[in-house]
């Protein structure tokens, strides 16, 4: 098959390679074949190869995907050509590697780190897996930080300050975490023009998330809670 791969930085171009087809071949297998056999200067990022680490996401035929778990058959359907580019909405460093600093900085800006009040001398917090709060946390907790949602989001493309689906989803899972004590501060951090209220509910993040998370649902929850806090005057 013919594989067109993005080469260079933001102002690069596509380079075509001929790669043999195999059964159960993934997009990451194809990129690895190019780098190991055809052109060792190709830059790309991967680590676990089993869909856990979130480092191998790329744009495959125009759609952001985790390449280690995307079969070629699924990505190209009946054609014999595939186009592989770096993730969108992030600066390209070289070839298929993007600079993900802004993506993770926004997690920090959304106050995406847990803060509890218990110390190591306290007993474990008991949270029932069946509790309504915990169920909502469970719905969004499996994010691997691959950047597929961020790359697929129109609002990120239009508003560079927008925190993006992953950071907002993270904030939502912490707000629903009964052990966390920074809820109000976090609601403030994810409100307004750069936060959840800019989401247009296009749901590209939900459609593309490889872990089947719905950041849109979390963002809707944030909108609701923040609006109530603003109306009550507690925001």
């Amino acid at each position, binding site marked *: 098959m013919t594989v067109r791969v993005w080469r260079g930085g933001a102002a690069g171009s596509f380079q075509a390679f001929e790669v043999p087809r195999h059964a159960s071949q993934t997009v990451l297998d194809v990129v690895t074949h190019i780098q190991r056999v055809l052109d060792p200067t190709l830059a790309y990022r991967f680590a676990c190869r089993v869909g856990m680490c979130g480092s191998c996401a790329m744009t495959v035929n125009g759609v952001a995907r985790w390449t280690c778990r995307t079969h070629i058959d699924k990505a190209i359907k009946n054609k014999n050509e595939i186009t592989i580019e770096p993730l969108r909405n992030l600066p390209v460093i070289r070839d298929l590697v993007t600079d993900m600093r802004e993506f993770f900085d926004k997690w920090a800006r959304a106050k995406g780190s847990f803060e509890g009040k218990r110390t190591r001398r306290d007993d474990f917090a008991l949270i029932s897996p069946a509790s309504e709060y915990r169920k909502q946390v469970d719905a969004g907790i499996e994010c691997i930080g691959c950047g597929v949602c961020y790359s697929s989001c129109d*609002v990120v493309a*239009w*508003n560079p300050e927008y925190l993006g689906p992953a950071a907002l989803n993270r904030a939502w899972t912490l707000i629903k975490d009964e052990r966390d004590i920074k809820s109000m501060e976090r609601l*403030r951090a994810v*409100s*307004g*023009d750069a*936060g959840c*209220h*800019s989401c247009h509910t296009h749901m590209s993040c939900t459609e593309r998330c490889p872990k089947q998370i719905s950041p849109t649902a979390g963002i809707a929850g944030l*909108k609701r809670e*923040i*609006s109530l*806090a*603003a*109306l009550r*005057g507690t*925001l």
Partner: protein
Amino acid sequence: MSFRAQTLLWVAQRASAAVLALCVLVHLATLIYAVRGGLTAAEILSRTQGSAAWFAFYSLFVLAIVVHVPIGLRAVLGEWLGWRGAIREAVLFLLALFLAFSGMKAVFGVFL
């Protein structure tokens, strides 16, 4: 602008959209019903003038537009043209005043 103010703008945008959905429906239904057999401006005015209920309804309609349009344009200007900041807010405030003035002028003209 504070986070609370930004959030309240969002709430106002949604609330005014709900009001507009109802107002547009009533407006169109009344319009279609009223002109079935053809209607002149004089006939319209003879029915509308002095009606307190219609005056109140269309005043609400105008209010919803005054709230809804500038907030929506604020997002459009920010996202499509990258225009953000105090000047944008000031221009949109002036637009709100213009909408309120021209909308209410029409309401007074037709219903008083």
